């Protein structure tokens, strides 16, 4: 069965030596459609996968643990070990028999790895992982009611407000949820002209979130004003599948699209540092103070920093490195993974 199994590739990138190391883990349950790592335990991850049975495809979700030796992140294991693929250890299933296909799984950011939310068809499910993640208990759930077949396509957990907010996308609509009451807090109708593919919260600025979709646009929203986007980017020439804020410098926004391009944009005007990096006043002399003031007066423009065209086919995933804020990776249909750095000039411009 070619499509019956999935693999997880763990790729180590040694920045100093520019060496790439790969480990392959077998995901026997089925082909993986979505993956997310636990924020608390680096060896634990959750996947959504397709299970084909009786000529039916069902997407399930489960929490897994990587083998110990890989978890340590040591890349000493020789390359030839990849031929003998190791297997993931199943911790628990997120039982979705009652709820339908799992679209995505998100962990509580900055939490202790106990809370997880999964989106299944039109349900939003909050799970509690108990007994060292060996059991998942459905803590609460909510479902979307409306005419037609509503299906969540994507979701993100906001790092702000004590992690009590989750945003989801279904069709052209963005919705915000309060995880305590599992009730809707805001709703952006027709956020995009067509299907919304992905969204992401600004990690440094409350209420700000970015979304992308099939109308080739990336839109930035202030969730307090749901009628108008704060900003719209229209750089891609086909569906935008992914949008990601840089974890520390939120003016850097990464998008991947099925026009095979990855675009890195500099959205200074709506970032948390609209006037550049502000140095603490106490630490600097007067001269520097003046200089920083002068610098802050420069009009900062939103612009596209770079367009990466290494991919030959649609790019379906992009993300920033969690370790190095200047590093990001993109993955395309043909299986090509590209790792890129933010241009050096820009890096220094932001830092200094």
């Amino acid at each position, binding site marked *: 069965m070619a499509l019956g199994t999935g693999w997880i590739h763990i790729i180590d990138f040694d920045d100093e030596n520019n060496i790439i190391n790969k480990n392959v883990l077998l995901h026997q349950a089925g082909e993986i459609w979505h993956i997310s790592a636990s924020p608390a335990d680096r060896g634990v991850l959750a996947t959504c996968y397709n299970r084909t049975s009786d*000529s039916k495809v069902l997407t399930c979700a489960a929490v897994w643990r990587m083998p110990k030796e890989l978890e340590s992140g040591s890349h000493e294991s020789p390359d030839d070990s990849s031929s003998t693929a190791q297997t993931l250890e199943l911790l628990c299933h997120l039982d979705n028999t009652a709820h339908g296909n799992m679209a995505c799984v998100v962990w509580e950011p900055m939490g202790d790895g106990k809370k997880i939310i999964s989106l299944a068809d039109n349900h939003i499910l909050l799970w509690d992982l108990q007994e060292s993640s060996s059991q998942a208990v459905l803590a609460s759930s909510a479902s979307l009611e409306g005419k037609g077949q509503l299906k969540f396509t994507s979701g993100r957990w906001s790092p702000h407000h004590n992690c009590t907010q989750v945003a989801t996308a279904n069709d052209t609509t963005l919705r915000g949820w309060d995880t305590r009451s599992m009730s809707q807090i805001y709703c952006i109708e027709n956020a995009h002209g067509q299907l919304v593919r992905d969204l992401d919260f600004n990690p440094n600025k409350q209420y700000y979130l970015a979304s992308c979709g099939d109308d080739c646009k990336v839109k930035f929203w202030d969730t307090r004003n749901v009628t108008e986007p704060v900003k719209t980017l229209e750089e891609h*020439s086909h*569906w935008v599948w992914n949008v990601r804020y840089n974890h520390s410098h939120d003016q850097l926004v990464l998008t991947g699209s099925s026009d095979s391009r990855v675009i890195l944009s500099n959205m200074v005007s709506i970032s948390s540092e609209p006037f550049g990096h502000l140095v603490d006043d106490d630490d600097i002399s007067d001269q520097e103070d003046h200089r920083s003031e002068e610098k802050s007066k420069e009009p900062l423009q939103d612009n596209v920093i770079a367009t990466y065209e290494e991919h*030959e086919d649609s790019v379906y995933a992009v993300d920033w490195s969690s370790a190095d804020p200047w590093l990001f990776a993109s993955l395309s249909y043909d299986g090509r993974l590209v790792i890129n750095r933010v241009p050096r000039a820009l890096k220094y411009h932001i830092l200094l």
Partner: protein
Amino acid sequence: MAAAAAAGPSPGSGPGDSPEGPEGEAPERRRKAHGMLKLYYGLSEGEAAGRPAGPDPLDPTDLNGAHFDPEVYLDKLRRECPLAQLMDSETDMVRQIRALDSDMQTLVYENYNKFISATDTIRKMKNDFRKMEDEMDRLATNMAVITDFSARISATLQDRHERITKLAGVHALLRKLQFLFELPSRLTKCVELGAYGQAVRYQGRAQAVLQQYQHLPSFRAIQDDCRVITARLAQQLRQRFRCGPSALTQAPICARLLAVALPCVCFCVELLLALGEPKELRSLEAELGPSPPAPDVLEFTDHGGSGFVGGLCQVAAAYQELFAAQGPAGAEKLAAFARELGSRYFALVERRLAQEQGGGDNSLLVRALDRFHRRLRAPGALLAAAGLADAATEIVERVARERLGHHLQGLRAAFLGCLTDVRQALAAPRVAGKEGPGLAELLANVASSILSHIKASLAAVHLFTAKEVSFSNKPYFRGEFCSQGVREGLIVGFIRSMCQTAQSFCDSPGEKGGATPPALLLLLSRLCLDYETATISYILTLTDEQFLVQDQFPVTPVSTLCAEARETARRLLTHYVKVQGLVISQMLRKSVETRDWLSTLEPRNVRAVMKRVVEDTTAIDVQVGLLYEEGVRKAQSSDSSKRTFSVYSSSRQQGRYAPSYTPSAPMDTNLLSNIQKLFSERIDVFSPVEFNKVSVLTGIIKISLKTLLECVRLRTFGRFGLQQVQVDCHFLQLYLWRFVADEELVHLLLDEVVASAALRCPDPVPMEPSVVEVICERG
């Protein structure tokens, strides 16, 4: 006269009749005496004879004539008359002579008597005069006595006389003083009675004295009183100016009175103010009033011109006549006054003109403005300092500017109206089931309608610069109005706004495609393109010809506008491609997403949705073909569909499926596909399109097929599912290649779809190409 009567047939004395000689001489002398008398009394001989002037007065034969010659007479008698007659005349003559003698005697006697009585009378008078002389002497003595007496009396009275004269002088002075003291009360009375003239005369008389003696307290008091009263008087006079029915006609008289009464400068201003509440302004204001049926603007400006401006001229003339002596200060005041009134008048006029802005009739407005402007020229010359003419010109300019704005609005509205019509026309024929008016026809309609609107606006605006209009030779109307106003503001502005309106359809929020009918986008795009190629330059040339642009203002060159129009056309067409592509994409996407591809049956037919896609594409092809040219495509072989189909179905496809079964295979597949892609060009899905049919359809098909590709990649296919995709793609390929510029593109994308479907299939057993062909040909 008896003598004359007798003389007619006077018998001549016989010849040789000696006694008759002296007799004859005597009458001659008498005759002479008579003649002299007659001469003295101024009677001519003939008249004295009383006869009609028959005989010649010099006739010597006339007995009574002055030139009677007895000899001639006798001769004549003797010669002419018979004897008997001679005898008769002799006797007659004798008798006459006797009568005359007796008459003479009587006269002498009478005269003598009278002479005697006259002598008596003179003697008597002599006596009387002597008596009178005595009396006269006595009178003379008496008179002398009287004179003597009188001299004596007057000498005695001399003293007293002098004193009396003095007293009389004092009396007169006292009377004057009394007048002064009574002056206030008199003035009051005069004011009360309304005898202003009298009052002013009193005041005039007292003025100098009071002025002279004002250092004395009592006089000062009087003067103050007088001043108060005169002030009241002035007040009343002003009152009369204000409410008087014919203020202006009475004004000069009163003004003169007032000027005498109050010769102070500030008064002039007050006078002007008093005069300056012309009823005309008020009546104009009333006309303006809230009631809608105001008289038309021409009438209004006429009223304003004749009423207010005429009045102003009159006032100004009166003022200058009255206060010419005041010199520049007075002129200044008049100017200020005129300015103040003028500004109020202008405010009224502007309000009225503002009401007119909505109307469409330019000619009336221009005529009204012309009159308004013309009327203000007279006071403009009279009151140059007030700058009324300038202000009037300014108003006219402002109105002209507003008019331009109004026309621009009108053009915009007309354009939007055209668009609405097009929308309706596009929506209607669906019901009828017929094609209705073709797109080309609609386009022609829109273009001609807009052009005619533009021409109408130009013509209307052109009135402002007509030669006979008084303000057309102002620099503004010769220069800025033409270039900046009409050309830039109206025409360029309209074309720009048209482009903007058209572009706004591209960013309309209804991105689902429902908001704007795609045909409208297409039509607008073509319209903009037509503008770029011809219409813009035509319109601008027309404008430049009509309005001879003379000044140096920079104007937008034709090329810039054309570039804008072209950009708009391009964006519209691109948007059209997106919208149409989206429509087909949605169809394809639904068809892929809603189907259960794992448990589908073996394909027997091409799916209906694919036929629909081909139908829709054909419809779009027809639609675009109505407005756009064919465009170029790459050279193609006569039977291209078959050839390429065999290529992708046999060699490439097989090569791709084969290695993907084993776990180690993905590397190879990826490598293979990557290598393939290295040789094929990257396909830019939403790329800008060119202005031709092929490019448009290529864009639409690209978008649709890319969607199909992405959707297929998200699904999992059973064997028959894959085969169905194979059939569908072959069908699409059979029909879509003819629409695109480069058929290789369609093949590439469809290859990709089938390859992706194969990758997503756990049991990829492709259908035999021949079977696929049979199914497709059957469908």
